[in-house]
C-alpha cells in the first residue's frame, strides 16, 4: 500500500515535469487541425510518432544519434583533458590570468559556428571540422571557469598551508584542485550545452552523419515529420546527458562542501 502511494507521488512529480510538454503538444495539434495547416508546413503529432517508429525500426535514428553522441563524447574528453590544465596554469599565474581574461572573453564572443567557414576550408567536409568546432566551443568555458575557480580560492588557504610546511604539489592537490572543482564542473556543464548546439549546427553544414545531418537532409524532401523527430531527439538526448552525467556530479560536490563562494 505504502509503495503504491509513493509511486503515486512519483507519478505526480513526473506529471508536473511533463505538463508543459503536454500543453505544447496540445497547442501544436490544435493549430494543425483547427486552422487546417497544410502537411507541407506542419504535421500532426501522430505523423511524427509514426515517423519516429519507422526511423527506429530501420536503425536509421540509432545510426545518426550515435554519430552525434560519439562526436560530443570525444570533444568533451579532449576539451576536459586539455582545458582543465590550461585553466589551472592560467589561473595560478596572476599575470597570465590578467592578460588572458580579455583574450578569452573575445573568443567567447566568436561562436563556434563563426569558425565553420574557416574550418571547412582547412579540414573539408569531415568529422574533423565538426570536432574542431565543438572542441573550440566546449573548451573555452572549461578554461574560463577553471581559471575563475582557481582565482577565487582565498589566498589564506594557500598561506595557511605554506606555514604548515606544504610543498607546491601538496598545495595543488589539497587546495587548488578541490577548491576549483565546483567551478570546473559548472564550466563543463555550460560547455556541454554550448557544444551540443554547435555540434548540431556543424553537422547540418558538414553533412557527414549526425542528427544535424538527419534534419537538414529531411528538409530536401520536405519530410517535416522527420525534421521534428530529429529536433525532439536532439532535445531529449541533451536532457539525458545533462541529467544523468553532469548534474549529479555538480550536486555531489556543491552539497558536500557547502557553498564555497561567498
Amino acid at each position, binding site marked *: 500500500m505504502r509503495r503504491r502511494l509513493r509511486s503515486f507521488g512519483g507519478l505526480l512529480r513526473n506529471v508536473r515535469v511533463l505538463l508543459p510538454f503536454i500543453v505544447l503538444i496540445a497547442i501544436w495539434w490544435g493549430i494543425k487541425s483547427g486552422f487546417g495547416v497544410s502537411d507541407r508546413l506542419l504535421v500532426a503529432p501522430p505523423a511524427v510518432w509514426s515517423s519516429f517508429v519507422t526511423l527506429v525500426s530501420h536503425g536509421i535514428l540509432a545510426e545518426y544519434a550515435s554519430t552525434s553522441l560519439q562526436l560530443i563524447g570525444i570533444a568533451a574528453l579532449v576539451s576536459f583533458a586539455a582545458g582543465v590544465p590550461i585553466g589551472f596554469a592560467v589561473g595560478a599565474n596572476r599575470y597570465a590570468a590578467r592578460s588572458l581574461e580579455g583574450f578569452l572573453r573575445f573568443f567567447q564572443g566568436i561562436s563556434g559556428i563563426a569558425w565553420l567557414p574557416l574550418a571547412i576550408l582547412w579540414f573539408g567536409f569531415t568529422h574533423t571540422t565538426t570536432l574542431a568546432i565543438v572542441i573550440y566551443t566546449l573548451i573555452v568555458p572549461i578554461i574560463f571557469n577553471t581559471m575563475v575557480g582557481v582565482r577565487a580560492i582565498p589566498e*589564506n588557504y594557500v598561506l*595557511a598551508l*605554506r*606555514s604548515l*610546511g606544504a610543498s607546491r604539489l601538496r598545495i595543488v592537490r589539497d587546495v587548488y584542485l578541490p577548491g576549483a572543482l565546483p567551478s570546473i564542473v559548472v564550466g563543463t556543464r555550460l560547455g556541454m550545452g554550448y557544444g551540443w548546439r554547435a555540434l548540431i549546427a556543424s553537422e547540418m553544414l558538414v553533412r557527414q552523419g549526425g542528427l544535424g545531418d538527419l534534419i537538414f537532409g529531411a528538409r530536401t524532401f520536405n519530410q517535416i515529420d522527420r525534421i521534428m523527430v530529429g529536433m525532439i531527439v536532439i532535445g531529449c538526448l541533451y536532457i539525458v546527458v545533462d541529467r544523468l552525467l553532469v548534474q549529479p556530479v555538480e550536486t555531489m560536490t556543491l552539497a558536500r*562542501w557547502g557553498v*564555497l563562494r561567498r
Partner: protein
Amino acid sequence: MAAMGASGEKITVSGFRHYFRTDGGRVQATGLVDLAIQPGEFVTLVGPSGCGKTTLLKAIAGFITPSEGTILCDGRPVRGPGRDRGVVFQELAILPWRTVRRNIGHGLEIARVPKAERERQVARLIDLMGLAGFEDRYPHELSGGMKQRVAVARTWAAEPEIILMDEPFAAVDAMTRLTLQEELARLCATTRKTVFFITHSVEEAVFLADRVLVMTRRPGTIKAELVVPRHGTGGRDWDSFTADAEMRGIAEQVMHLVHAERVG
C-alpha cells in the same frame, strides 16, 4: 629596543621597514620597527587599522620579504614560511572541503606523522578546544566561533614553536570572543608557545599578553611597551581580570596610548 641577534631571543626584528609598490608608486606600509620576543612569551601588538601590524606579522611568517631590515627566528634569518611558525588568520583559512578532524590533522598529515599518532594529537586538541562531537562536520556546518577553534587547533596540532595570530577573533561575535580568549589563555598556559598576537582591541591585548606593544598610525612604529604581570600559572579569566585594579590600570594606560593614534 632590540639588540641585534641577542642570544636566546625567539624572534628578533631589527631595522624593519616595509614599502608596497602600487600603481601610484611606493607606499610606506610601516615605519622603522625593532622588536625582540623571548621564548614562551605572549606578546600582543595593538594599533589603529592600516598601521602596518599585519605587514609586520606577514614578514615574520615569511609571506613577504622586508624592504629593509632583518628578521631572525632562533637566530636564523627568515626565508619564506615554515613549520616552525604557525599562523592563525582572521578568517577564511580552514578548508571547506575537509572535516574538522581532517583540517586539524592537516599539518601532521603534511609532516607525514603516522596515522595513530596523528589521531591521538587531533583528539587531544578536539578535547582542549571544546570541539568534541563536531569531528566529522564540515566547516559550513559550524558557527564562526567553532571555525576559529578549528583554525587554532590546526595550528597548535602541528606543534610550531612560534604562533602568529592576526586578529583571530575579530570576526566572531562579542560573547563568543570572550570564551575564545579564555580558551586561548588556558591553551597557552598548558603549552608554553611563543605567541605574537595582533589586535585592535585594547582589552584583548592586555588580557592575553605578557607584554603589550602599541603601534603608531601609518607608517607604524612601536611607540610603547607595557609589561603585564602574571599571577599564578593558569590562564587568565575575564572575571578576575576585570576585578583586578592593576590590570584595569594597564588597560587604561594602553587605551590612552591608542587613543592618541586615532585616525580621522
